[in-house]
């Protein structure tokens, strides 16, 4: 049995379930893994780790897990503090359970990813750079004069302009005119702002295991980029990750990293290949993928 953790209408979960069914394999989509009928026993001692989440499905008979969304507690009936506490508890338990499973888990989360989901590109910069991938220039500045310099530098280079990207959310604002730059200065009176280079049209690619799947035709320098993408995915311990590549200063640069790729953004052929690659990754020999599991 394969468990696909996510909402029942998640395109990826639906596609993988159908793909597994084509191989005669059972899969269940589960929106809230720790909610009844779950009855967790997770036991760690000197002899190792044993766990069971569902009464009629021992964990050792789970063949693979795809992690899309592990659900959220319904706040109804909870005092605010108790709700926050229970939410933290459930997240903590789910992280441990996923890491203890002795079967392929895509993506098997570590704490730094688990507790920083939805992080901006900034958080991945170090690993992307180490993998040999180019990135747009970023400036975090409290200085209106430095923001102006950044603007001039981009204009001189004939680039697409600057983007203001708050770190507290995923929105971005193209600074298209003097009025926008003037409003930026008023924000800088209170807090440094994060500016980045605007980029041209982005090409989407999904890394699934060793495979790199482009949404459209691969760019001319695809082999070099693909090798770097694989290095990044390996270093970040991501079996499944979406990356957007766009021209910045006439060179391909990474402008997005999404560890929970959205299949809706892909055309049908790419989607089919992604699903097939996920099914292949999930059905690999469990022993090859299991890591850090107490023996």
């Amino acid at each position, binding site marked *: 049995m394969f468990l696909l953790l996510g909402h029942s209408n998640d395109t990826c979960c639906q596609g993988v379930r159908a793909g597994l069914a084509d191989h005669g394999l059972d899969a269940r989509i589960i929106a809230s893994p*720790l909610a009844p009928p779950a009855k967790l026993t997770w*036991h760690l001692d000197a002899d190792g780790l044993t766990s069971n989440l569902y009464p009629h499905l021992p964990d050792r008979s789970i063949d693979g897990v795809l992690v899309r969304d592990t659900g959220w507690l319904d706040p109804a009936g909870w005092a605010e503090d108790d709700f926050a506490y229970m939410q933290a508890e459930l997240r903590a338990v789910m992280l*441990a359970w996923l890491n203890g499973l002795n079967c392929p888990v895509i993506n098997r989360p570590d704490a730094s990813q688990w507790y920083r989901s939805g992080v901006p590109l*900034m958080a991945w910069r170090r690993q992307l750079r180490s993998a040999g991938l180019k990135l747009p220039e970023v400036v975090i500045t409290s200085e209106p004069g430095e923001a102006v310099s950044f603007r001039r530098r981009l204009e001189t280079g004939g680039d697409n302009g600057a983007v203001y990207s708050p770190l507290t959310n995923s929105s971005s604002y193209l600074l298209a005119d003097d009025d926008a730059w003037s409003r930026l200065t008023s924000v800088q009176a209170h807090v*440094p702002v994060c500016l980045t280079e605007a980029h041209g049209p982005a090409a989407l690619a999904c890394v699934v295991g060793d495979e790199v799947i482009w949404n459209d035709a691969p760019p001319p320098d695809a082999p070099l980029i693909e090798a770097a993408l694989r290095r990044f995915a390996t270093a970040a311990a991501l079996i499944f990750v979406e990356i957007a590549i766009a021209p910045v200063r006439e060179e391909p640069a990474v402008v997005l990293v999404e560890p929970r790729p959205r299949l809706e953004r892909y055309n049908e052929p790419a989607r089919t290949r992604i699903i097939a690659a996920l099914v292949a990754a999930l059905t690999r020999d469990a022993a090859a993928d299991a890591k850090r599991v107490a023996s």
Partner: protein
Amino acid sequence: MILVCGGLADGVTELVCARLQDCGYPYRLLDFARFPAGYRCNVRWTERGPEGWIATDEWHLDLDDISGVYARLLGADDRAPLPGLDPADAAVLRTEADLGLMALLEDIACPVVNRIGGGLSNNSKPYQAIVIRSAGLGVPPTLVTSDPDAVRAFQAQHGDVIYKSASGVRSIVRRVGDEQLARLDRLRDGPAQFQAFVPGRNVRVHTVGTSVFATAIESEAVDYRYAHLDGLTTRLEPVELPASVNEACLRLAQACDLLFAGIDLKQTPSGEFVCFEVNPCPGFLYYERHTGQPISTALAELLRGRAH
């Protein structure tokens, strides 16, 4: 130059600053109590990583001149309101500034005590237990369950059992007694974490780079940190650990990407060591004051770039 990011109202940060002063190691304090008000910065990320500066009206610090960073966040209550803003806007802007600073600390090339990513394992104790075991340290028998029968069986097997949160929230250790057993049906709301009570002597280990400082703690309290709340006393003294335990503690800190870690051990009556958790932001002041162990000096050397 060393950059200290914290608040002087916090005793641990105060001790770090005092030790740097004693050692004659120059430092700049980024005071979280008022940050970002009064601070200016310009940081540019290029192919080589971040470069630029941080400044106040009194000082200007080039990132290239920083030999090490010590960061210890303050709670919201310890931070001054941002002038001229309503509280909701101020909270968003402060978070924005904090995230900018964290992005810098994640990527700056010098030693950082500690980068945020490394400390997040402490938000899941059972996950951390897997990491601890992988580093070669024993862990107490641990049960995380939503099944009341499993708790009763666990207690029948181990006798004395404690419970504590699985997350980093409400992290106080308590014994399971009749009152708790009567409430086990509440596990249906979500699982809880139980551990066999491990008798023996508490040992707190601080790893600083590759240095290890172990402190033995004698106390009658289940959780010695809170002994005073129950009117109980606590006695601390330096102790030498077997080399294999020292090495396992260093492996654990490295696995968690922590240059400075507080590791809670217990030595059982039979001499074995079990590990309970790793603290990524250890309040070492308590241990250094009681034992005189030179933890802050080792930290100062690490930040100065002279650690072993």
